[in-house]
């Protein structure tokens, strides 16, 4: 069977060309071959054998934000509709929350689960590692399939048309449709197809619209009122995981704009966040940076 296909569809996650090629502070990311957030995470954590607690979150963040910027630029250049950027931003949220959870879980003292919350974090960590392992497992399975696919490509099945004397034996076709039915069928097949609704990735998120700008504002307010806070305190009132994620994203953005600083007293201590007083951070301006997605994550 000849699987004729005009072209290979490129990987669905656009990988910006050579983002972060140059080595910066021992941190080097070649995003060329990445295929989604889990690839990036695996690359960061397994390939480079980074202990998540030793990874400065800010550095990782910068890499991701650079990645997003490349995407936005690429999207603007190609004049695409920004769906890709929205997709990637959503994926970025997955990475961000996964990284955060990993880090938070790693920061917990081992064997000392003080309360229910700690226990949940540990569980979350196990799940996240399991997810990464699963992803890796499928990558390996794909390798097997790829090898088979290539090896089998060297063989061609015999699939020839029926010899005329046997074709002549076939029962005479009964045609049950006329030209109009045929036209209707052709019209249906040739009609532009609506893109299938994407049912990806946000099914587990709940709540109304959450914007990075709004969350940045509420973080600013909270820090102004109470000074230095741990991340757990910043998200203590979050009604849904989505808000935690967006708040985390807002923090990354604020850090990038030098509006806040992170501090960690000791290796297993909490991550403390404080406002940099002299910064000219404008929460509303964040909106522009995430234009592709409207700076907003919709729950649908």
């Amino acid at each position, binding site marked *: 069977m000849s699987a*004729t296909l005009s072209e290979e569809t490129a990987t669905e996650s656009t990988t910006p060309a050579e983002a972060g090629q140059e080595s910066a502070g021992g941190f080097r990311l070649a995003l060329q071959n990445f295929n989604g957030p889990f690839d990036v995470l695996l690359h960061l954590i397994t390939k480079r054998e980074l202990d998540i607690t030793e990874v400065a979150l800010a550095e990782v963040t910068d890499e991701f934000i650079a990645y997003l910027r490349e995407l936005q630029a690429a999207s603007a250049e190609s004049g695409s509709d920004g769906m890709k950027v929205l997709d990637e931003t959503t994926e970025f949220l997955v990475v961000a929350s996964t990284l955060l959870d990993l880090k938070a879980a790693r920061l917990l003292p081992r064997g000392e689960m003080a309360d229910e919350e700690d226990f949940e974090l540990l569980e979350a960590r196990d799940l996240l590692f399991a997810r990464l392992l699963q992803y890796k497992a499928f990558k390996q399975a794909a390798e097997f399939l790829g090898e088979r696919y290539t090896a089998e490509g060297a063989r061609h099945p015999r699939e020839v048309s029926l010899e005329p004397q046997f074709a002549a034996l076939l029962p005479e076709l009964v045609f049950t449709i*006329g030209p109009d039915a045929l036209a209707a069928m052709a019209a249906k097949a040739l009609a*532009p197809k609506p893109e299938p609704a994407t049912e990806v990735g946000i099914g587990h998120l709940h709540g109304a619209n959450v914007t990075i700008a709004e969350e940045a504002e509420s973080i600013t307010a909270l820090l102004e009122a109470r000074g230095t806070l741990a991340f757990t305190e910043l998200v203590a009132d979050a009604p849904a995981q989505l808000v935690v994620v967006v708040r985390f994203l807002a923090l990354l953005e604020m850090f990038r704009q030098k509006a806040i600083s992170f501090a960690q007293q000791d290796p297993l201590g909490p991550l403390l966040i404080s406002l940099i007083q002299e910064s000219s951070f404008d929460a509303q301006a964040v909106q522009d940076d995430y234009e592709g997605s409207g700076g907003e994550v919709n729950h649908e």
Partner: protein
Amino acid sequence: MSEIAPIDRLPGGLESGLEAVLMVADIPVSSARLAEIFEVPTARVAAALENLASEYDGKDRPRGFELRRVASGWRFYSRADYADFVSSYVLDGQTARLSQAALETLAVIAYRQPVSRGRISAIRGVNVDSVVRTLLTRGLITEYPEVGDGGATLYQTTEYFLERLGLGSLDELPALSPYLPGVADLESLDSATYDD
């Protein structure tokens, strides 16, 4: 042409090489074409083909297949001695009706001919190799004399197709637009080629 061709370095040599190509060939292949493929003189190919043909006819036992030379070249066929069994295989489960998939594929070919299998697949969103073969066997479509981009085989409908649908010519195929109210750009649907 060198004395030792690449095929001579493989176990089985030219004869096995010829078997490999002919096993997947749907239409008869000329010895000249085979000579090109294997980079050996045509006379050598012709001799090897004769050898194979007589080997199949009975060195050990008559094979179930035979290598026959027809006007345009050589092709594997099933041996006539076993025609009863082959017929019962061919007729098993055959119906007088075309499947829905075959009809849809026929409709796409009718309105987009000449068209390649790749493009039909892209339009229908499924692999159409087997239904295209059915339509060929049934004589409703045939290969277009010229190849498309990248050497793809193109297909067109036949006279028999027009007869079966009661049409005098392809111009009598109904326009598509009335069948899709609500599609804004009906003109382009009727005329433009599908973008795959």
